């Protein structure tokens, strides 16, 4: 599926800072994640095993491209997507990091409807 329209439809409020070296802004990234994920997952009405396999991979690539377009200088990114079926089950996801708290940060967003839930975490790590 072609998601390039989804990226071009995003509204970024901080494009004027794209040339300066700014630190990872959690709110900005979270806003971007909300816009992207709502656009893409709203189109899925049912949980389909094969489609969701491909969707999770596509989503991680799309978010990686969107992060690159945010133009943070000297940052490496790790994007993790967890996509699942909404049943009565329980799921717990925990994360710990060893990093530099002055420069590194993360942003996460969880989306769910009656059929599918999606948890996305983006980590930004400064490269010295």
């Amino acid at each position, binding site marked *: 599926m072609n998601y390039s329209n989804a990226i071009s439809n995003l509204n970024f409020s901080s494009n004027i800072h794209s040339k300066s070296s700014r630190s990872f802004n959690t709110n900005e990234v979270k806003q971007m994640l909300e816009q992207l994920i709502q656009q893409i997952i709203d189109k899925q009405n049912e*949980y389909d*095993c094969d489609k*969701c*396999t491909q*969707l*999770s*991979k596509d*989503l*991680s*690539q799309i*978010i*990686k491209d969107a*992060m*690159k377009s945010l133009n943070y200088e000297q940052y*490496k*990114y*790790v*994007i*993790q*997507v*967890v*996509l*699942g*079926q*909404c*049943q*009565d*089950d*329980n*799921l*717990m*996801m*925990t*994360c*710990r*990091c*060893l*990093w*530099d708290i002055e420069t*590194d940060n993360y942003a996460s967003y969880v989306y769910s409807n009656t059929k599918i839930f999606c948890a996305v*975490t983006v*980590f930004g*790590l400064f*490269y*010295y």
Partner: protein
Amino acid sequence: MDDTNETSFVVDEVSNVIKESIEATIGSQSYQQAKINTWTSNIVEAILNSLTKLNKPFKYIVSCVIMQKNGAGLHTASSCFWDNTTDGSCTVRWENKSMYAIVSVFGLSI
């Protein structure tokens, strides 16, 4: 690639660390809702402690998902924007009769 293991991510070494931590924490347990918070925290912290002791110039991200076995589907995917020669990741999928655990470790060189 073995002789550059001082500055590149060694998957086998990290994979062993992950498996040992999972076995030590939930190896003999059955799924209990009240405990999964503690279990995920313990697994992740034990792995991070072991990785720190390796004394490599890396930043680490460790994430753990524990899910009850009830037939629901789960997909995880990750993508990374980094230096392929030095950075790497390792994901271990573990299960017993009542639950699944998926642990991912990402190592990024400084």
